[in-house]
């Protein structure tokens, strides 16, 4: 591990990530305006788009994709735990 050369993310990759993020931002705004009647669909699409953006930021800007895989494992475990606790709580309230 120590001998591995640090991966340098190029300016181009960062710019590409940025453009992708802008596109997704535009998409989430447009979807929220168009889907005005479908409340549940809007919140789910909004969360799915937000999560896609979050993964882009984490993998490229935060170098997760290029770092040692222990960071990826840690992040996915923490996010998985958080998501399951959120789901459990929300499902509890929805089904009351």
């Amino acid at each position, binding site marked *: 591990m120590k001998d591995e050369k640090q991966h340098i993310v190029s300016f181009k990759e960062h710019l590409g990530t940025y453009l992708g993020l802008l596109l997704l931002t535009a998409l989430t705004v447009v979807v*929220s305006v168009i889907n005005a009647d479908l409340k549940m669909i809007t919140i789910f699409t909004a969360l799915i788009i937000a999560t896609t953006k979050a993964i882009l930021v*984490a993998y490229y800007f935060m170098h997760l994709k290029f770092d040692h895989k222990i960071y990826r494992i840690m992040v996915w475990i923490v996010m998985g735990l958080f998501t399951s606790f959120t789901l459990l709580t*929300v499902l509890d309230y929805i089904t009351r």
Partner: protein
Amino acid sequence: MAHLVLPNSGHNRDPEASKMGMWLFLFTEILLFGGLFIVYFVYRNLNTEAFLNASFELDVTMGTINTIVLLTSSMTIAMSITALQKGNLKLSVNLQWATIFFALVFLVIKYFEWGSKFEHGLFPGMDHYSHLPAGERLFFFLYFFMTGLHALHIIIGGIFIGVVIKKTKQRKVTGERISLLENSGLYWHLVDLIWIYLFPLFYLIN
């Protein structure tokens, strides 16, 4: 046997450990905001209509501009790491300054946004706020608390990057010793990540 040599008395560095420590800290931040998001989901579920009505008070244009500003700042801090790794100190420092600049732009827009809410008396404790239905009061309470806590993180992140600029100029942070810049970048991206969720959940309920 006269000399006692301490095994770690030198200036040891461990980039992996320092990055690991930063990630562990970021997890505590995720849990801090995560708890608030759970509160948000539960109350939104209990007060669907009120949350919808209250969110119309928020300015989608300003929210969208701020999202773009934060994404841009995230890119500049990420690029400043690339620049320093490639040995371009000046470009790296400039990109760090750019990040602080965008942080200030974000705060100024936030100031005007909050200002107009204050004018309408929507801050918890104000006159108009006290007469709103319970669900809308919850919405505005969460809005001010969560965006306020987020703005505090922007200020802390900006100061952190300011310190890194100084150290980069003193060449204490270089391409080979980049941990501090990387960690300030990680912190900044986390602030961006939180906003990625705050924006659709507060501004885009339609």
